[in-house]
């Protein structure tokens, strides 16, 4: 989804597995699930976590906020999990396989999972849950994932999902499918109105006490099928003010904080009782700079204004602009160093899907000037701004730049970018806009030249790569008006490719095409910063590429220090 800043609404785009066993192949692993240490809970203790928000709903179908999904990951299990390195791992489904024609997926469900109320979980619960999320159209997110399946439960440990077309992203469709107990939910005639305060699931923690906007208390599930957590209790406390959150950690009021301001990093790093962890966020995100390059003949007939600057449809101009952004300096200045230079629409947090082989456009103003000279954009009147070519319907290279006014860093970023661009004879007028207004000038109206915005991603790369399809120009998903038949053909092929390696090659090629054609410049990928006390609990999961200490991969294994 288009993301405008805070942890706001990254919701479904995030994920994690209750499985802590890291590396495992996609289809054949045993259901040993979480590799917790001893299964005992003798160590005990209460982990206190400070976070900035609070869940918006305890009903998985209704939730939008990331905090709600954090709870679901702890309280519910999903058929398939996603570990912090981006691998799909078995969870309730001990293995899964696809038929030769790619139209039928069979999952084997573990036989020892038990709901918090003592009822054993069977394939009927899995079928019920998948259909629950699929069929309620007024759940905001979850229906998108199982929408292509017909679901059967032929025996208590088998679930069969049929599709009309092969799908390449089966695993990613299962990672948000929280399995709820049929015997509790089937009585709800209107599942959207169900507040689900008891949150009966099969996960490693169960709901103890909840106060909206204040705190959540979870108790370790002493009967957890994949290994009992080491601690007795986990408390999430809402501490809205970022400085108060940092103080709470330093004073020992909390043992870990899930988010903090970049400005506090050096203070916390100098505290010997505190460890700061930096890495990819659980829901990888990126900032982007995109160009209005919609061709006249593809201007959306109903909504299109298509007032984009004609020169931006020229690849030479976009290439020169790409050479004129110093991503590292932008990160150092605007983000205090906390970002990773970006390159493609698939962020590095998506693991193997990220094409790590692509060379970026070097920051080289001389080369950029040369490209524009060669392409015939000359500053003939000597005012410092290059003129358009004669056949183009424009005067000079003056671009409108917009960004959402709820972004803290965009103002500095675009001042920098505008400065670099002025050195290659490109002028710009910068105007921040309210996100709703930005949407209305963006797409599918195409009433802009350049926009700086961003995305939070789905675990599957197919989602964001859909934003550059010809077919999405009218729908408003395409922000650029980019249209390339070769790219579209690759997109269609990867969508039905069930072999992960073949699909990965296609996804990599698509990223290469986008980098060459430059509908987007990706200044950076977001980084997450968390911190924990070293003197209270130990065993936090810090070695993975993603940082998410609130994830079951940490909370299932942490134990009191010393």
């Amino acid at each position, binding site marked *: *989804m*288009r993301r*405008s800043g805070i942890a*706001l*609404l990254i*919701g479904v785009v995030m994920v994690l597995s209750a499985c802590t066993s890291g590396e495992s192949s996609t289809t054949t692993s045993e259901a040993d699930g979480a590799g917790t240490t001893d299964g005992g809970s003798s160590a005990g203790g*209460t982990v*206190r976590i400070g976070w900035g928000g*609070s869940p*918006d*709903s*305890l*009903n998985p179908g*209704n939730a*939008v906020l990331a905090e709600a999904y954090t709870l679901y990951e702890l309280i519910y299990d999903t058929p398939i999990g996603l570990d912090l390195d981006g691998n799909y791992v078995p969870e309730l489904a001990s293995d899964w396989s696809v038929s030769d024609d790619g139209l039928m997926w069979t999952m084997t469900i573990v036989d020892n999972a038990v709901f918090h109320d003592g009822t054993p979980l069977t394939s009927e619960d899995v079928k019920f849950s998948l259909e629950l999320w699929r069929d309620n*159209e*007024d759940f*905001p*997110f979850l*229906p*998108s994932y199982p929408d292509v399946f017909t679901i059967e439960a032929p025996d208590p440990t088998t679930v069969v999902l049929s599709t009309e077309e092969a799908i390449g992203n089966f695993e990613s469709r299962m990672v948000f499918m929280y399995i709820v107990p049929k015997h509790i939910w089937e009585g709800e005639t209107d599942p*959207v*109105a*169900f*507040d*689900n305060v008891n949150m009966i699931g099969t996960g490693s923690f169960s709901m*103890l*006490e909840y*106060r*909206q*906007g*204040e*705190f959540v*208390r979870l108790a370790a599930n002493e009967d957890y099928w994949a290994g009992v957590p080491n601690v007795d*209790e986990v408390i999430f*406390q*809402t*501490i*809205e*003010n970022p*400085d*108060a*959150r940092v*103080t*709470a950690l330093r*004073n020992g*009021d909390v043992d870990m904080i899930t988010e903090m301001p970049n400005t506090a990093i050096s203070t916390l790093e100098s505290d010997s009782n505190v460890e700061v962890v930096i890495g990819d966020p659980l829901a990888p995100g990126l900032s982007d700079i995109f160009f209005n390059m919609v061709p006249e003949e593809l201007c959306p007939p109903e909504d299109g204004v298509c007032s984009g600057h004609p020169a931006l449809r020229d690849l030479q101009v976009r290439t020169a602009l790409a050479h004129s952004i110093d991503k590292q300096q932008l990160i150092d200045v605007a983000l205090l160093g906390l970002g990773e230079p970006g390159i493609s629409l698939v962020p590095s947090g998506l693991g193997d899907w990220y094409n790590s082989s692509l060379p970026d456009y070097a920051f080289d103003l001389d080369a950029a000037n040369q490209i524009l000279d060669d392409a015939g954009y000359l500053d003939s009147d000597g005012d410092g701004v290059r003129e358009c070519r004669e056949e183009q319907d424009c005067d000079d290279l003056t671009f409108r730049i917009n960004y959402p006014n709820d972004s803290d860093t965009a103002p500095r970023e675009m001042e920098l970018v505008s400065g670099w661009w002025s050195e290659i004879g490109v002028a710009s007028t910068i105007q921040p806009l*309210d*996100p*709703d*207004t930005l*949407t*209305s000038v963006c797409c599918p109206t195409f009433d802009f030249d350049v926009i700086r915005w961003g995305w939070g991603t789905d675990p599957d790369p197919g*989602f964001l790569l*859909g*934003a550059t399809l010809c077919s*999405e120009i009218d*729908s*408003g*998903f395409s922000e650029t008006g980019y249209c390339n038949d070769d790219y579209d053909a690759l997109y269609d092929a990867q969508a039905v490719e069930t072999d992960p390696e073949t699909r990965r090659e296609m996804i990599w090629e698509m990223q290469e095409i986008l980098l060459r054609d430059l509908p987007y410049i990706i200044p950076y990928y977001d980084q997450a910063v968390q911190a924990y006390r070293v003197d209270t609990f130990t065993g936090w999961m810090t070695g993975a590429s993603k940082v998410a200490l609130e994830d079951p991969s940490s909370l299932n294994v942490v134990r009191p220090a010393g």
Partner: protein
Amino acid sequence: MRTGRRRFVTRKVVFAAVTVFVVVTFNFFLFRVLPGDPAVGGLRDPRLSPERVAALQERFGLNDPVFVNLEGGNLLESQYFAYLGALAHGDLGTSYAFRDQPVSNLLGTALVNTVWLVLPAQVISIVAGVGLGLFAAYRRGTKVDVGALSFSLIMWSLPTFFLGIVLLFIGANWVGLPTAGRVTIGALYDTTWDQLVDIARHLLLPTATLALVLLGEYMLIMRSSVVDVLSEDYILTAKAEGLSTSRIISRHALRNALLPIVTLIALNLGFTVSGAIQVETVFSWPGLGQLTVSAVNQRDFPVLQGAFLLLAISVVLANLVVEIIYSWLDPRVSEA
């Protein structure tokens, strides 16, 4: 005289009811002028298909005409009349952002939390502010007066969030007070006394912040009011009779000087339900102020309407009470 006051009270009550109705209607339309689609909140996700957005709009009743139904059928089949009808039954609707929560639950919880914070702060600031104002007026022109006056002016003009952050750092780092929350979460107490101490420790910083900010206002009004009264002729007469200063103040000056304070107290209490937004934010207090801010960000119209209704009713009610009290204190008011 008695019928005069009854007529006065009746008139004021009717006027208050009309005011609340106008506010309800105004708020209803005010929020709908905001850009954006409340069905999806601040959320723009291409996977939200048009069908699903339509389903969400249907659930929230957003497909109906806003004011009156001009598309044929019953004129009253509109969002506005549906809202009024539900309101008449005490139903404030269901939150858009907290999709499975009735607005009345959300508001009720937040109101209790807000009162928990604001009431002690009000009581402390009233007692301390009035006392300090009286004392300063009594010692008018001395160093004590100048000191108290400067202190009050500074407190009154300090941004609340700044004072809150400063107190938070001092209290948390040097005194060891908790940084957030109303109680120690999940704590088991040996005695009721332990529980009270825990509550007091959590209340101390936010209450002190709010009380200090409010105190300045009470002190300044009280002081100037007492100074005014002390320059009246009848005080001079009392002095001439040889009464002691303390007797003059307690018997003659205080009652008259309290009139403006009564107004201020009632108005401040009325605004209590708007929550102390800044204090609630600094100290993560889950009160009405916080709920309102998040509702604005997420276009949660039902919660906003509920919060504003609550605010309107309490402010109007507070004004009504002041006017009725005044009609008792000063009979000339009800004859006007």
